């Protein structure tokens, strides 16, 4: 299906993409599904020909406390990130933020080992991940629920680096990812 007309409203230098015949605009890049517990899950050599990335994660911790899903880009472990969240825990709504962080996180997404068979989930959207002029802002809707307590969170993070994202390292805030944890990476085409 093609566009027959676009207006420009006089935007200088504005680029409009044309629609191609290939409409498979959401493509899987890679998935890791764990057959045993593991400390980290990484995606390297991320193709640079997409417009946006989406990560869909389903995870569990090997520890006896709920853990955050954390990640870093391009091996950057420096204090180059900020994080913020809007959270509900069944009792109230809360928000917080932090600057100069060494990581980005999806809050309390990895369910503790105490609750057998219970996993948390999060959908992470990273827009313009390959744009060389923009810091990289991510938006994450996620949470966990164990029939006793739960948290639902809209998180965000920013990597203060204009370099295109070529790798992502995921890890729990403590312990390992448990068996059957899964992280899937998708590209949305330009």
């Amino acid at each position, binding site marked *: *299906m093609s*566009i*027959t*007309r*676009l*207006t420009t*409203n006089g*935007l*200088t*230098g*504005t*680029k*409009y*993409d044309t*629609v191609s015949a290939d*409409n*498979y*605009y*959401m493509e899987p890049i890679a998935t890791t599904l764990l057959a045993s517990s593991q400390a980290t899950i990484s995606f390297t050599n991320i193709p640079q020909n997409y*417009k*946006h990335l989406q990560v869909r994660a389903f995870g569990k911790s090997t520890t006896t406390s709920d853990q955050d899903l954390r990640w870093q880009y391009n091996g950057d472990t420096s204090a180059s990130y*900020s994080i*913020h*969240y*809007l*959270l509900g825990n069944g009792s*109230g*709504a*809360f*928000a*917080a*933020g*932090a*600057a*100069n962080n060494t990581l980005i996180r999806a809050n309390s997404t990895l369910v503790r080992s105490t609750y057998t068979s219970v996993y948390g989930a999060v959908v992470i*959207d*990273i*827009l*313009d991940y390959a*744009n060389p*002029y*923009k*810091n990289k*802002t*991510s*938006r994450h*809707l996620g949470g966990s629920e164990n029939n006793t307590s739960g948290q639902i969170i*809209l*998180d*965000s*993070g*920013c990597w*203060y680096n*204009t370099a295109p994202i070529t790798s992502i390292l995921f890890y729990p805030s403590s312990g390992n990812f448990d068996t059957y944890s899964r992280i899937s990476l998708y590209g*949305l*085409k*330009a």
Partner: protein
Amino acid sequence: MALQIYKIATVEVGSAGASSIDFASIPQGYTDLKLVVCGRSNRASSVFDDILISFNGSTSSFTGRELYGNGASAASITTARAASIATASTATTNAFGNSEIYVPNYTSANYKSFSVDGVQETNATTAYAIMIAGLWSNTAAITSLSLSPSVGTSFDQYSTATLYGIL
């Protein structure tokens, strides 16, 4: 029959900035629309700016309810045309917002509800996350949409918006 997400168009703002980002002549062959926005506004003296939406050139008959966090507390307000959030001039350089607007059944002869999840970031404690329940109380099919900063006068260079059709 297996069906896919289709990209309709992408707009990237150029060096002169843009008072609005417009999508005209939206094809009517899809069921839902998904719009993702990665924007920055020239609003002065603020880390954020709301982004307003209009459909078919109309700025009337919009209502909404918003839940937001500001890095310290959560609150809820009523809104009208707010449909996204952008980073603004006092936010960290080169930081942009990240929002998704989902409009189900955009060609129907019924009112048009829409769902918004949005964040903006800056390297400080204060930054905003929003969730909006929006409604355009108009039965016309959506054939065009426009985004504009609420307080600022233009989107900054490199702001982008990508419109997808979903069958």
